[in-house]
């Protein structure tokens, strides 16, 4: 049986009286991109910080491809590339020099690997510029490049697309997805962006107040809000008041000149479609709306604090 890429067993972390992570257990299967979701202060970053031992666990165990982090620290960490928080660099050095410093400690990383990494992250042209001249997005890409430098089998990323524009985000996540599919890389990625996790991850783990509250296939966990239907009209758009006359429609909100979000009393978009057509409206699209982060955590945790 293949060992999980990352296994957290009964992991705990206390800061004084605060229980940041409580008895957290999860297993990330190898060769896939797994998301790690949670509201602010849920314990996501603390958990990720414990993987490279930047934060010492108060209890529990971390295994990376079967190697116990406590007993076989070097072996375990040799398989991992980590990028926690906004990546920090020696700003007075160039991107290339920063990668060279990282490569020297990793060992077995040559000049050609650095060239290749810079090429892949799109910074080959600016490799000799000091990092202090880089934008946040460029630093983010350089951080991912540094994490990938030692050809890790597991990549741990904390909010890797922070500060990046949508195009850069797609580029980086697409690149990681390609590495997962082509090289069998495992990526464990924390994010607060549901669509990001939904689009790129296969598995998702949801944490709240330091505890795992949900885990499984991303399509099951992050399924759309079946009662909120986004409806786009061609031509005349009905007045919300007209629609609210039917008791099966609970709320109507206009999100654009031709689109309404309609909250139904029950999950029945087929009925809504029929109802609108019968009333003489022409509908061009009718789709359950993706849950907002607030709605998602509310549905998972039932906790209004997160909302």
């Amino acid at each position: 049986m293949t060992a999980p890429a990352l296994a957290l067993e009964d992991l705990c972390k206390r800061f004084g009286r605060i229980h940041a992570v409580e008895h957290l257990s999860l297993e990330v299967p190898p060769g896939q991109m797994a998301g790690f979701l949670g509201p602010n202060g849920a314990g996501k970053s603390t958990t990720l910080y414990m993987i490279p031992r930047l934060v010492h666990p108060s209890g529990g165990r971390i295994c990376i491809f079967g190697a116990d982090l406590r007993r076989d620290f070097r072996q375990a960490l040799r398989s991992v590339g980590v990028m926690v928080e906004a990546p920090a660099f020696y700003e007075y050095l160039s991107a290339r020099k920063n990668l060279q410093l990282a490569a020297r400690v990793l060992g077995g990383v040559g000049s050609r690997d650095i060239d290749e990494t810079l090429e892949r992250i799109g910074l080959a042209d600016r490799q000799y510029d000091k990092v202090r001249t880089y934008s946040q997005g460029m630093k983010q890409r350089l951080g991912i490049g540094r994490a990938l430098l030692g050809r890790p089998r597991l990549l741990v990323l904390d909010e890797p697309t922070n500060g990046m524009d949508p195009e850069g985000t797609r580029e980086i996540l697409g690149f990681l997805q390609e590495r997962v599919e082509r090289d069998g890389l495992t990526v464990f990625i924390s994010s607060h962006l549901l669509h990001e996790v939904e689009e790129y991850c296969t598995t998702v783990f949801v944490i709240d107040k330091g505890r795992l509250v949900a885990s499984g296939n991303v399509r099951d966990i992050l399924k759309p809000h079946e009662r909120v239907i986004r409806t786009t009209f061609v031509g005349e758009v009905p007045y919300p008041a007209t629609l609210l006359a039917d008791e099966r429609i609970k709320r109507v909100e206009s999100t654009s000149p031709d689109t309404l979000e309609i909250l139904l009393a029950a999950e029945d978009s087929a009925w809504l479609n029929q109802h609108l057509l019968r009333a003489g409206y022409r509908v061009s699209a009718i789709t359950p709306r993706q849950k907002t982060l607030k709605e998602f955590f509310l549905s998972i945790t039932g906790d209004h604090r997160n909302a």
Partner: protein
Amino acid sequence: MHSQLLPLLRNEVVKAVRRKLPYFGLFMGGLICVLTYVVADEIGTANTANAWGYVALSMQLVFADIGLIFVLVFAAMLMSDETRSGTIRAALAAPLHRWEFYAAKVIIGLLYMIAMSFVCLVLSSLLARAHYGFGPVADSLGEIYSQRTALANFLLAWVLSWVPLAAIVCYGLFLSTMIRSSGAAVAASIGTLYVIEFTKHLVGVDPYIFTRYITYPWQVLGQVAQGVGYEWRPEVWKMLGLCGVYGAVAFVAGLVLFLRQDLNE
């Protein structure tokens, strides 16, 4: 698996040579040597009767203040600067032990201290050679100490002068580990040093404070240069003991603190 100490040390050297502060420190130390040379004749003491005396005086003046401060500031920024900027997290998220990282920091601190001492010594010696001579120590009655004896004491003073400075490096690094802001770490290290310097006589703890030995080896060389009787022992043993204890305590305390530290934001 082999230690990562050497690659880490090479990284520390790369970082140090690409920064301005170390050069500024060396420049300031050199400046004191030049200024000492300029005013040496005006001082007109027996210290400057020959090259040995001039070097002893110059090194005392460098390491009584400016040189000491730059060695301390360099050490105090080693860890805190990385913690403040977050680079420490990227550096430690690699297959290396924390003690290796800490040891590399101590070694680069010691190397900078030695570099500072070396630059000032070479510059002082060149200036001294231009004006005086590194011959035997003599007075009107003849030779008191041979050139060989003077040279031996000169080299011994130079090597021994590293001992209290090494303790300063360990102290600076300890504060750098404890305080996560580089500015605060520098302020705390210089501040505590000066408070101790100003109050140690008042409260009668001077014999137990290692900083009293920072210029001690050069004072002994000054005695040699003046042709008066000199004794390294037993004071040098006290120096080694006191500086060793302070340095070891600061080193161990800093290391233990670093090993146990949670490096989250």
